[in-house]
């Protein structure tokens, strides 16, 4: 079965515009979504090695570079000058396909559509922890908005 999500690229004009906008609102939104999941569906204990690390999610076609860290109170956007510990880059379509479990991360990596730079161990932890979330078992317990693939 081919992925249901069609191939698309965010138009260059949109990316150019988004790239000039402040990155705080989308970074806040991503951190907020992660925090909603943290402790509920994402096991905090397993993600502990992420504590204090700078993670950069680059949505290459959308001009977005979202930088955040995991602290005692959950994920928060960070704008300091410390180097990134982990950088993950892909297009919006491919990030969505990963989130929806329509694409395998290694498939995207082999096809050069996903780039993971920095601390590979942290990257594997993030990828494998997300893969291990049993959405089917959690669905009844989830909040009514968002976080529900499929």
């Amino acid at each position, binding site marked *: 079965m081919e992925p249901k999500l069609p191939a698309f690229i965010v138009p260059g004009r949109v990316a150019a515009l988004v790239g000039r906008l402040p990155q705080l609102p989308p970074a806040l939104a991503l951190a907020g979504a992660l925090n909603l999941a943290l402790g509920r569906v994402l096991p905090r204990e*397993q993600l502990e090695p992420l504590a204090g690390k700078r993670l950069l999610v680059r949505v290459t076609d959308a001009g977005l570079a979202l930088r955040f860290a995991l602290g005692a109170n959950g994920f928060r956007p960070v704008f300091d000058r410390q180097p990134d510990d982990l950088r993950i880059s892909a297009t919006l379509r491919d990030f969505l396909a990963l989130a929806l479990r329509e694409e395998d991360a290694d498939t995207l990596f*082999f096809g*050069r559509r996903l780039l993971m730079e920095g601390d590979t161990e942290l990257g594997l*932890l993030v990828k494998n922890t997300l893969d291990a979330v049993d*959405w089917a078992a959690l669905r009844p317990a989830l909040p009514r908005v968002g976080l529900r693939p499929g």
Partner: protein
Amino acid sequence: MAIELVCPAGSLPALKTAVDAGADCVYVGLRDATNARNFTGLNFDDRALADGVAYAHARGAKVLLALNTYPRSDNWARWTAAVDTAAERGIDAVILADPGLMRYALRTHPSLRRHLSVQGSATSYEAINFYHEQFGIQRAVLPRVLSLAQVEQVIAHTPVEIELFGFGGLCVMVEGRCALSAYATGESPNCNGACSPGKYVRWEQTAAGMEARVNGILIDRFAADERAGYPTLCKGRFAVGSETYYAIEEPTSLNTLELLPEIARMGVAAIKIEGRQRSPAYVGQVTRVWRQAIDRVAHEGDRFRPDAAWLRELARVSEGQSQTLGAYHRPWK
């Protein structure tokens, strides 16, 4: 006897996906060095294992536990505890490589089925029969170095069921004995359960291309339009003489779909799909294709031809530039 489809799972969702997509068996590992896919965040803790076994058994599927690395005297108890866990959790078979562990399993849990792992590196029926006589091995997973004619010879001379790799990433295939990763990192898949463990791997996009390093050693540099492979030493490009090339092997995937009629005719018991390190998406995609193919070959026999759509789907998820029939197909022999 129909061929069993044996699929990989590195997480509970992957196991459920495999079962739902038609796997007869799912093979899994624990969260430690007792298995050869010991990657951070991957594999099953006790709770996930119990849930996975319950899910599979309720749907008529089996769960196999890979305990296919080699214990040492200082961590022996961890491996025997894993065998105990398998027995307690109702695992259908353990996949073992170490003869000492086989002996422990036979003596402590005689009714627990024992399979010989590919990591055991047994390529002759003499070796397989030895494991059968000494440790009651009921199935052997053959290393991917034999031609189909050789596989047929093995099957003809052993009472042990034979499981063949059908699809997935290939390596240099010195299984159970490969020290390439240890050469660069001090850790081998045989004892530590991972080839090029994540903590030693670094990728970086540079002006010259995407560079892959293992413990600081540059092992490959990919141009923008080149497909990538796993960062293992056997798949690196190295300077040899005046040339830089894949001196050991190019990143390649095994795909034996077109050999399925021959595999079925010679009495292979099971086809194994590689890839416990991969996501539920891959497990679902590959399991669905192979389920359809195995069902079709049971009806069509030698008239079987794989669908073009199946081959496209498998090529899409493959590692490296190309797919191969591996050693199975040697028409010149």
